């Protein structure tokens, strides 16, 4: 049984005649790193928004752990799937960097001491410790991106969906992110990456799905070692 399973999913944006996604079938497993690649506007972001229940399909069904996703609340989905938006501005809403990282933990009832410890760890790892009291939207683009990722990782969800996670990161920070994501994967947590960054996909992904015009063009299936075919 796939962790996330899409069957015959079709989706239209309001007042658009052409569907953004057409008859899509895809299963994602919890023990592999999948990448979705495809040109601008091919429907990658739309697909991930359907997977986390922010958008609902016009036809077809999406199942999370064998149950229809419509039966989960957004918060229930959010506790299972960590989602990093393509635009970090859309998901930063606290008044300080430290609060942002600790937000999920605090609200899920973690002990303040545990929250503090984890916040310190993630701020250190993603080199944001110097900004702990800064206003999130005042950070540079790359810093906002790292903060958005740190805030999602701090919740330690079983599965991660990252929409263009390397955007705006310098080579060194990209390497840090890669190392961390690989570590998360070794802990047995699954991951879906959306990226135009071919070398990144090449180094990270065990499976590459290409989408074009809202349809799956090719699916490499699971590979022993990741090889990226353009």
């Amino acid at each position, binding site marked *: 049984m796939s962790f996330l399973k899409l069957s015959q999913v079709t989706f239209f944006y309001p*007042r658009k005649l052409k569907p953004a996604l057409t008859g899509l079938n895809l299963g994602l497993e919890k023990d592999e790193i999948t990448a979705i690649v495809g040109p601008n506007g091919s429907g990658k972001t739309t697909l991930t928004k359907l997977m986390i229940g*922010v958008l609902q399909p016009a036809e077809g069904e999406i199942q999370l752990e064998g149950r229809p996703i419509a039966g989960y*609340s*957004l918060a229930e989905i*959010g506790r299972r799937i960590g989602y990093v*938006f393509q635009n970090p501005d859309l998901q930063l*809403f606290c008044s300080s960097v430290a609060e942002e990282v600790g937000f*999920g933990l605090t*609200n899920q009832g973690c002990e303040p001491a545990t929250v503090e410890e984890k916040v310190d760890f993630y701020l250190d790892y993603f080199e944001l410790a110097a900004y702990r009291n800064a206003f*999130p939207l005042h950070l540079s683009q790359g810093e906002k991106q790292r903060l958005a990722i740190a805030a999602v990782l701090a919740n330690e969800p079983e599965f991660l969906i990252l929409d263009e996670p390397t955007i705006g990161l310098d080579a060194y920070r990209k390497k840090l992110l890669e190392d961390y994501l690989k570590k998360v994967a070794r802990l047995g947590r699954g991951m879906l990456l959306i990226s135009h960054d071919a070398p990144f996909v090449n180094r990270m992904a065990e499976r590459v799905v290409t989408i074009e015009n809202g349809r799956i063009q090719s699916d490499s299936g699971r590979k022993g070692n990741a090889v990226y075919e353009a």
Partner: protein
Amino acid sequence: MAEFNRIAGEREMPYMKLDPRTKMVMVICLSSLALIYNTPDRLLLVLAATVGLLLIFRFDPSAIWGYLKPFLSLMLILFVIQCVFTRGGEVLLAVGPVPLITSKGLSIGAGVVLRIVVITAAAMLFTTFSSRDFILGLVQWRVPYELAFMVSIALRFLPVFRDEFINVITAVQLRGVELKKVSWGQKISMYRRLFFPVVYGAMLKAQQLAVAMEARGFRAYPRRTYLRRLNLSSADYVLMLFFTAATLMLIGINFTT
């Protein structure tokens, strides 16, 4: 910007081509009535008239629900506050000797909510013409271009604020917080904590837009010429007169009875 146009309208009207200024007068009339009236029955009549107009302009009134939905809890809070803190009329519910809900409180609470609904519905008329026509119309009435432009930008920002609010609500829930199930106290404290960063964030985005506008030459030409002219048809004159006269009359009646 595609998002703006989608919401702020650029949609063609197959029939009932009225001047944007006529629709502006209608919005002003309906909103004034909504602000002056304070009884639910009169406000309901204004709402009915507004929905009727929207139907005539082929705007799907069910879309209003989409605009109001994110503010539902705020409206509920307003309603409860008005209900509980307004004294007068019959006591409908009391805790011991303390009256909790009175008929006056209930009517004022309902009035506040209806007023928000009417003004939102009336503002939907703005989405039935393009912002370019709006500016053009105002400029032909000798409103300075900068001012007309600012007003149209302000109108375009309403959907931005709404989208910002929806984004934050979504992001909060995706971080694992059950907003629908928590108690009212927790909900209010959450809104209070998020209010400042969200408003400030929206302002930062507005500021970026303003910089982008200047960079693209806004204010560069003090005298502008226009390709098109909007002409008021006789239907426009009749409707504008009718709406203004009817509104003034209704306001007069409201204050004399």
